[in-house]
């Protein structure tokens, strides 16, 4: 890989994480359509990981995304995944 290609990929890494934050933010503020659409653009393994975090946090219970509490839970799960991807 060329240094220019790597620099571009590093930029893409930050952008991908910013997109994920924007998705979490959309859920947090109840913008469900925007949040759902944003989720579709996340890589499949990331979506699965978010599902898993939600499952673990809710104790395996189904959640209703139209409820404020569930929206905060989804946002928190997405942000946990962001933290994992940043690996700080």
């Amino acid at each position: 890989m060329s240094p220019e290609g790597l620099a571009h990929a590093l930029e893409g890494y930050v952008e991908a994480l910013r997109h994920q934050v924007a998705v979490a933010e959309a859920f947090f503020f109840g913008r469900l359509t925007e949040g759902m659409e944003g989720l579709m653009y996340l890589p499949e393994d990331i979506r699965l990981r978010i599902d898993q975090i939600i499952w673990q946090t809710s104790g395996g219970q189904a959640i209703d995304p139209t409820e404020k509490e569930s929206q905060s839970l989804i946002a928190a799960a997405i942000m946990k995944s962001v933290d994992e991807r940043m690996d700080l």
Partner: protein
Amino acid sequence: MYINPIKAKGVTSQPKVATPFVASAAKVAKGIHIPKGASKGEFKGRMWTPLTQAKKLAQEIQKHWNQWDLEHTASQIIELEDRVLAIQGTSSQIEKIKKIQQRLHFQFVHPGATELFDNDREETMPPSFLQTIQDIMQRVLRSHSLAPFQELTLNQQREVFRIVEEGK
């Protein structure tokens, strides 16, 4: 059948005559009291005061994000929210300040998000994630070598390779 034009009884209409300009200007000026010493520019900006105030407060919060204690930051974010709610109308500037206000609120609840937007940290603080990535990016380009990339953790490197794969 012929219908006569309707006429109000007992009303003698007078043709309307335009008031002379000077007279009407004087009439308007009578009703407006401009405080002494106030410039025209001040009045021009007055309409946008709530937006300007909100912008200023947002800048203050961003500037002191790492210095203020949590309670003060929270109170300022609530204050900003109130100011944004008070802004009337729609414009790109208003939409922008609403987004900034929501972002600050969100970053307060989820501090991890600040790592991706904070590239103006004080020197005494550890660099943000964004600063670290930008630093590596610049060194890769300057040295024309991939060596600085090795400073990232294995997970971070894996994430960068994911982007490379997605781009193919």
